[in-house]
């Protein structure tokens, strides 16, 4: 019995351009699996963003529009308002969603736009080579915080899932991790929930995914997952921060 296969939503000849061990690959696969399982392929319009996440449209056989940096939730708002019957999804990095695009992200959640946003949190700007971003941990060394993040120079990181949960239009907000197989399964369940709240018209669905950037962290893929567990989860605890279906 076939218990796993490459999701049908992938293009036949897709080639992941991600670095060795990068969790983007897992996150995109989970999204593709759910699009397959929930029968959404023919009805989905994907909004990608700027950064490593933008390449998603090269892998999935979906209708896609690329948003300018940070504007995915505004573009998704436009798509959804023009075509309310479509399933609208954004896929963004933490810099895109919560730094340059924080206003667009929060206001979309405040309006309760019926869209789903998936945000990859890897505590750095990956595509440009590992600079300090909105989620960079205190003490973390990056190419623009060579002595580590400190309060005096850089201020504090943002806890995205908690902030989005505070928006009244948010229907679901969760933080998950991809560091272990059980956590990957939990992540899939959370993304599914964020899809469902949109389909039910309940408001914005949001999932923050703790992810790795082994290249810019200068770690092996295994070490990177250990860092997610030992450092990131302490500051960004996984959990469901809002779920209107449970209230």
């Amino acid at each position, binding site marked *: 019995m076939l218990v796993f296969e490459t999701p049908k939503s992938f293009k036949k000849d897709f080639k992941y351009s991600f670095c060795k061990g990068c969790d983007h690959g897992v996150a995109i696969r989970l999204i593709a699996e759910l699009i397959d399982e929930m029968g959404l392929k023919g009805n989905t*319009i994907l909004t990608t963003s700027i950064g490593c996440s933008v390449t998603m449209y090269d892998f999935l056989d979906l209708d896609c529009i690329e*948003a300018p940096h940070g504007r995915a939730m*505004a573009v998704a708002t436009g798509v959804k308002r023009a075509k309310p019957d479509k399933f609208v999804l954004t896929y963004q990095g933490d810099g895109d969603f919560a730094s340059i695009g924080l*206003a*667009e992200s929060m*206001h979309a959640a405040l309006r309760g736009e019926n869209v789903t946003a998936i945000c990859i949190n890897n505590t750095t700007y990956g595509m440009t080579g590992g600079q300090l971003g909105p989620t960079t941990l205190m003490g973390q060394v990056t190419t623009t915080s060579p002595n580590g993040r400190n309060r005096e120079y850089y201020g504090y990181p943002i806890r995205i899932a908690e902030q989005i949960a505070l928006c009244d239009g948010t229907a679901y907000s969760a933080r998950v991790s991809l560091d272990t197989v059980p956590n990957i399964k939990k992540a899939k369940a959370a993304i599914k929930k964020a899809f469902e709240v949109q389909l039910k018209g309940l408001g914005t669905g949001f999932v923050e995914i703790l992810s790795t950037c082994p290249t810019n962290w200068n770690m092996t893929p295994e070490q990177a997952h250990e860092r997610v567990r030992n450092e990131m989860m302490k500051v960004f605890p996984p959990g469901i921060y809002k779920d209107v279906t449970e209230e």
Partner: protein
Amino acid sequence: MAKELIKGNYAIAQAALNAGCECYFGYPITPQTEIGEYLSLKMPEAGLAYVSAESEIAAINMVLGACSTGARAMTTSSSCAVSLMQEALSYAASDELPVVLVNVMRAGPGLGSIYPAQGDYYQSVYGGGNGDYRMVVYAPSNVQECIELTYKTFYTAHKYRTPVILLADGVLGQMMEPAEFTQYSYPPVDNSSWALCGANGRAGKKICSYGPDEAKHIQHVKDLFEKYKLIAEREVMYEEYMTDDADFLLVGFGSIARHLKASVKVLRTKGIKAGMFRPITLFPFPEKRLNELADRCREVMTVEMNMGQMYTDVRLAVNGKTKTTLLNLRPAGEWMSVEEITEAVEKSTEKIYAGI
């Protein structure tokens, strides 16, 4: 429909609805706020999308999203806030999306003031965004034209899949004059080949500007410019007034052209053979016709409410055939009066007739 007394901003708003605008995304800024106010009342009633965006950046990006599905979508704004939209306009040009933007100009640079001005000629015509692209720009000069050119703006944007700007100014936005809501009579445009609607029984479509493949990117930019060339061949619009025998040509766009027409009338009573040439499309600029007219003119005087922006295009069009001058007594504020304009022309013609 009969003529009614209508304010320019309301004329643009209602014309957008007549043109089939399905989605409006906007943020308030003087002197165009009435457009959003009007649509916030009318669009929900009609089951259409109206969103009070959190910023102009968000508004134009919402237009991008809506346009990607083939919908007729619009945002409206003014000068300093249009500056915030330049990134998305560059994307829209590269993505080939039919973005409709109305800019009711105020004075700049910076926050400037809410006085009328024409300081966004460069921003609109030469683009404030990055990279090689052009945008079609229509410049109405009265409220009736605000209606007709709003129709045209929607049609051109969708026909050529390119962002189009309706460039009005504070005078037009705020003034009331009799105008008639004519029928929107342009044919429907088929967007089924590119509009996103979900990859149902077909391969997914991608709307993007990112071009990591050098050869493909170069071809894409060249294709865009082939399209602009086609637009320049087909879509040029201008108005001429008493140019048949004119030896002194006044050139202006937008609402100031009303004073140019009046000035021509006054100058003719004084024996000066003046004429007026008014570009209606600022891109494509009617350079060919202006160049022809320059043949028999002793002087081509550009009159505009900025420090001489369209003047650049006028000089390029005239191309040294005759003398070109600029009359721009004020870059913002009160429109140059007919008296000020005729006086300047008379001074200039004295020199011409004296052979200086």
